[in-house]
């Protein structure tokens, strides 16, 4: 696997990032959270704003774009809005789009891809549980409704309950994750939730799907993110230092997924191990070399799974690992330094990429991971796992 992926190392760079004003857009004039279901934005408004900012960040114009990945948007409508006739297009989560854009650039289909996501989920009052759940891609999200089973949060509650039963992981240990991410968000002026959270406040918050509490759940907010991915030899002499895509991996643990077997029997570690065996050798690094880490965090539990699955700690020891500030800025492995989807913005994998790029560019002030050279993102949605490693390149 190493031999087959190695030629793709560092052939593309992230040259521009753009995000909308998550914090500002979340608050009404009185400073309180805007109501769900009151349409202030649509997804295209947010995506357009993020695209413009990413192009400005890179110092490029739309005429430089010859490939387009869209997420939560119609590719045709987005292209039309932005006056683009792409030579290649794709769609998916951030990691999938970056991997596929790399392959398209490597194949010579295009040189400069805009990856654009927009989600007006608060304006539209998008439901992630109950009778209004839509979409058939993941059967377990809707199949057990007759028994009253619904919501991705409840599926992760089953996951954490199993982890508790097998390993004795405590709710207080899990709470360290939400507390750490909130601490990071407090250093991020664009984070939706910046008010400090103590472990006592975490434990006093109501259960949603026990054993998960309010602060184990991500936000529901409006936003957009755009990334500009460019062939590395064309990435020099732009406005920003190019950040290299140095490694990636992809594996999906789908056998008996609706039964929840990989979720409850292996905690998706089968997929994690497959991805780890691709991403680290390709980038030529090990978990020890990772300076800043981000994981998909629709729920706090994701971090336990990815830390154990990618070998940062032993299986079952994630609860102990996240204690004592180890995952906080200044700790051994700072995780989700923007505040993540729990506290910065629920951009479904997209907001993690600008943060890792910024950490490698440097200059983030109090949020900066000193001397960051290697950044890793782990994506795991119901066992559909991918990972990316970014570096500053040669």
């Amino acid at each position, binding site marked *: 696997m190493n031999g087959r992926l190695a030629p793709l190392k560092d052939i593309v760079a992230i040259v521009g990032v753009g995000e909308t004003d998550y914090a500002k857009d979340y608050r009404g004039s009185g400073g309180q959270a805007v109501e769900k279901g009151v349409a202030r934005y649509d997804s295209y408004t947010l995506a357009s704003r993020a695209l413009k900012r990413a192009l400005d960040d890179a110092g490029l114009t739309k005429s430089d774009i010859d490939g387009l990945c869209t997420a939560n948007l119609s590719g045709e409508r987005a292209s039309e809005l932005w006056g683009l006739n792409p030579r290649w297009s794709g769609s998916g989560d951030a990691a999938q789009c970056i991997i596929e854009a790399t392959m398209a650039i490597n194949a010579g289909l295009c040189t400069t891809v805009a990856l654009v996501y927009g989600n007006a989920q608060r304006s539209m009052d998008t439901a992630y549980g*109950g009778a209004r759940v839509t979409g058939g891609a993941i059967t377990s999200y809707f199949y057990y409704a*007759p*028994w009253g089973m619904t919501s991705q949060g409840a599926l992760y509650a089953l*996951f954490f309950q199993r982890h508790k039963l097998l390993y004795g992981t405590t709710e207080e240990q899990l709470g360290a994750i939400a507390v750490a991410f909130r601490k990071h968000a407090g250093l991020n002026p664009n984070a939706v939730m910046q008010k400090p959270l103590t472990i006592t406040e975490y434990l006093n918050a109501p259960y949603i799907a026990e054993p998960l509490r309010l602060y184990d759940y991500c936000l529901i907010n409006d936003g957009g993110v755009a990334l500009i991915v460019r062939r590395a030899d064309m990435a020099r002499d732009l406005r920003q230092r190019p950040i290299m895509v140095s490694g990636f991996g992809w594996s999906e643990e789908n056998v008996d997924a609706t039964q929840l077997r990989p979720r409850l029997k292996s905690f998706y570690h089968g997929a994690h191990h497959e991805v780890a065996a691709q991403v680290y050798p390709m980038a030529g690094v090990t978990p020890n070399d990772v300076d800043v880490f981000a994981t998909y965090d629709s729920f706090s539990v994701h971090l336990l799974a990815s830390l154990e699955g990618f070998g940062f700690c032993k299986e079952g020891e994630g609860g102990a690992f996240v204690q004592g500030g180890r995952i906080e800025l200044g700790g051994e492995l700072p995780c989700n330094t923007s505040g993540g989807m729990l506290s910065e913005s629920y951009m479904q994998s997209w907001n993690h990429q600008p943060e890792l790029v910024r950490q490698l560019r440097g200059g983030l002030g109090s949020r900066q991971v000193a001397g960051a050279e290697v950044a890793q993102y782990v994506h795991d949605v119901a066992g559909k796992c991918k990972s990316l490693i970014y570096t500053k390149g040669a």
Partner: protein
Amino acid sequence: MATARPVRAMDPYAEQFWAFTQARELRLQQCADCRKFRWPPGPTCDRCLSDNFDWRRIRGTGKVLSWTTFHRGYFPEYPPPHTVVVLELDEGPLFVSVPVEISPRELREGMTLALRWTDGQDRLGEYNLPVFGPMNG
């Protein structure tokens, strides 16, 4: 009137599964070639890709793997608190269900629960819902 429940996801195989419940029979597909039990129902065996299968009546016992209690209401038919349990059936498949005649506090990892039935209906019709309770219940 049977108890209203959130609507079932339906396809030709699910339709057959739910039809058996009208006679209070919990039947899962077993591959006629390699004998693997599968759930949820579907057209092929994921182990050998055979489309030959039998609807086997299962023993109706399984061991508790995990559970969660909803403290927020998602379905009007299931006001909180509502508990859901995941069992590993003797035949192999994992099965999401509702624990009955036992409080969530009494659930234990590896505890054996046994099949019970309760009624149900949605806009697709009436059926019986397989739920699970204590062995000596």
